[in-house]
C-alpha cells in the first residue's frame, strides 16, 4: 500500500507528479478518501507553517498548492461519493480600489488546502459584490484583502455593508500588508491574519 506520508512530503515539496501518482495508487489500494485528503491537508499545513516562519516563500507555496490541486482533482469524485462535505464555504477577495492579488491568492489556496470550499471573487471587489456572493453561496467565512493604505477604508465599507445585512453566523477575517489587529477591531472584523498560514488557523478558530 502506498505510504501516505510520502503524499504529505510530495505536497510539501510541490512535487506534483509524485503527489498525483500516490493519490491514484492510494485510491486503487483502498485507502479511504478522507485519509488521503488528511495526508494532503497535513502537507499544506506544514508548508504554511514554514511560510509563517519565513522559511519558504511565495514560489514554494504556489507549487505546493498546485500539487494539492492536481491531486484533489483525482481525489474529488471519490470524496464526493463518500459523502464528504467541506468545512465551510468561504468568500474571498481584494477590496474595491485595490488590484493586488498575491496575498489573497495564497490565502485562497491555503483555505482550499484546509478543506474549505472557497469562492474567489478576484480583485477590486465592491462591498455589494461581497454581500451578494455571501448570500448566493451561503458562506460563513469572508476574507478581505488590501495591500494599499489607501484602500483600507474599502475594508471598512465592506464590513459595514456585511454588518448592515445582519447575515447570521458570517465571520470576517481581514489581512494584507498595512492591516493590523487594531484596525480589525476598529472596523469590527472578527479576526486578522498576518499571513496565509495564520489565515487558516484564524478561520478554523472563528468557525469552531
Amino acid at each position, binding site marked *: 500500500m502506498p505510504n501516505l506520508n510520502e503524499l504529505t512530503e510530495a505536497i510539501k515539496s510541490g512535487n506534483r507528479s509524485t503527489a498525483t501518482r500516490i493519490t491514484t495508487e492510494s485510491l486503487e489500494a483502498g485507502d479511504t478518501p478522507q485519509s488521503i485528503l488528511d495526508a494532503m491537508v497535513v502537507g499544506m499545513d506544514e508548508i504554511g507553517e514554514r511560510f509563517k516562519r519565513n522559511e519558504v516563500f511565495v514560489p514554494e507555496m504556489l507549487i505546493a498548492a498546485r500539487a494539492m490541486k492536481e491531486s484533489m482533482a483525482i481525489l474529488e469524485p471519490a470524496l464526493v461519493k463518500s459523502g464528504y462535505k467541506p468545512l465551510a464555504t468561504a468568500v474571498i477577495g481584494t477590496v474595491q480600489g485595490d488590484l493586488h*492579488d498575491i496575498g489573497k491568492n495564497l490565502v485562497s489556496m491555503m483555505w482550499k488546502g484546509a478543506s474549505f470550499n472557497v469562492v474567489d471573487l478576484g480583485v477590486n471587489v465592491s462591498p455589494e459584490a461581497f454581500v451578494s456572493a455571501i448570500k448566493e453561496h451561503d458562506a460563513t467565512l469572508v476574507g478581505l484583502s488590501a495591500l494599499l493604505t489607501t484602500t483600507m477604508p474599502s475594508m471598512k465599507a465592506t464590513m459595514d455593508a456585511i454588518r448592515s445585512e445582519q447575515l447570521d453566523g458570517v465571520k470576517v477575517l481581514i489581512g494584507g500588508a498595512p492591516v493590523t489587529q487594531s484596525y480589525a477591531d476598529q472596523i469590527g472584523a472578527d479576526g486578522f491574519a498576518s499571513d496565509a498560514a495564520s489565515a487558516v488557523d484564524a478561520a478554523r478558530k472563528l468557525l469552531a
Partner: protein
Amino acid sequence: MTGKEVLLRALSGQTTTRPAWLPYVGVHGASLIDVTAKEYLQSADLIVQGLTKANELYQPDGLPIVFDLQMEAEVLGCELKWADKTPPSVVSHPMSLMEGPGKALSDLPDFSVEKGRFPIALEALDRIKKQLGEQVALYGLLTGPFTLTLHLMGNDVFMNMYDTPDHVLAVMDYCSEIACDVATAYVEHGADVVAVVDPMTSQISPEHFTQFVTPAVNKLFDHIRSLGSKGSMFVCGDATRNLEVMAETHCDNIAIDEQIPLDKIRDLALPRNKSFGGNLKLTTVLMMGNEMDARQNAINCIDAAGDRGFILAPGCDLPFDVKPENIQAVAQMVHDTYQRDIARTTGSVSETDSFDDIILPDYTNESAVIVDVVTLDSEGCAPCQYMFKATMDARNRLNDDCQVIVREHKITTREGVGMLVKLAVPNLPSICIDGQCKFASIIPDTAVLVEAILDAAKQKQELTS
C-alpha cells in the same frame, strides 16, 4: 556643507555630523500641490511644482524625481489602471500564460526612454536639476529587474522559477538591459544616484534571489558604476531573509523598509563598504501618528543607525495622504541637535512610565494663574532659556493684584516628562497657561504673553464671581 554633500558623504559610507535625509516624495508631491496622482505623474510641470514644495517644507538632502514602478512596464505593453492617490497599477501581464496572451520577449514593443512617461520624468529631472541641483542630491528611481519581470509575466513567474528557470533568467536579463538604459538616461540628465527599486524580491528565498536576481542586478550596478554614478538597492517590504544576499550584490547602498532592524542592515552593509538607509514607519507613524510619534521614530532610527554611512528615509514611498507636519517633524530632528536631545530624553522615560503619581493642579480652583513652562532645561538650551525669560518678563510686567505662579518643568527629570505627558505638550519648549498649551516651540512676544495671562485671570474671575 550643502545637504547634497551630506547625503553623498553618507552614501559613500563616510561619517556625517547629522543624519542625511531623503524623504521619498512620490505621489505625496501631488497631494502637496492639490492635484491627483494621475495628473501629477503625467506632467513634468506638476512634478517640478510638487518637488519644489517638498523641498521648501521638508529641507531634504535628497529627493527622488518620480517614484512609479510602472513606467517601464507601460512602455512594454502592460496596461495600467490609474488612481487618484497611488501610482498606477499594472493590470495586464503580456507574457503571462495563465492570464494573458503569453507573448514572447520578441513580441514586446521595443523599449526606449523616448517612449511612455520617461520624457516627462527626464524633463522634470532637467528642470529640478537647474533649480535644486546644487543643494539636493537627485535620485533616479527605476524598476528592479525582478519586479519588472513580474509585471511582464504575472504570477506565472513564481512557478516558472521551478518549471522553466532558463526562461525566467532570460526575461530577467532583458529587464536588466532595460534598467541599464533607464539608468543611463537618468545619469545623463543629471541624477546623482540611481535607485533600483525591486520590492517583489521580498517574496522569494535567498536561493532564488541568488539564482535569478543577483546576476541581473550585478550587471546593472556595474553599469551604473561605469557611468560614474552610485547605485542603491531598495526593497520595500519585509526583506529580512534576503538581507545577506542583497548585501553581496554590487550596489553601493541598501535601503530597507520598516520591518527590518536598522542595526542589522548596518552590520551587513558597513563591513562591505556599502552605506544603508531607512526606515521610518509609513503607516502607523507617518500617516496615522502625530508629530511626537514621528520625532520618536526618527530618533530611534538615527540612534540605531549611528553616524556612519546612514541615510534617514521612510521605509518606502510616502503615501499620498501622509501628514506633512509629521514629515516636517522628522526634518526638524535631522537639522536640529536640540530636538534630537529632547526626543532622546522624553522617549526613554515615557515609554515605560504612565506617571500615575503626577497629578496636575485643579487649575480652575487655584487662586493664581499657573504658567507651566516645559523645557529641556533652561540653563542648557538657548530656546528654553529665552522662553523661560519671556515668561518671567511677562510676569514682572503684571500688577501685583494679578496672581501668577510660573513653574519650569525640565524634562531632564521624571517629573518634567510627567508634566509633558499630562499637559499633552506637542513641542518643546512650550508654555501652558492654567493647563492649556498656549505657545508650543514659538517664543511669544512679551505683550502677547501678558495678554494671554490676563485673559486666563479674567476667566478665573468670571468663574468665581
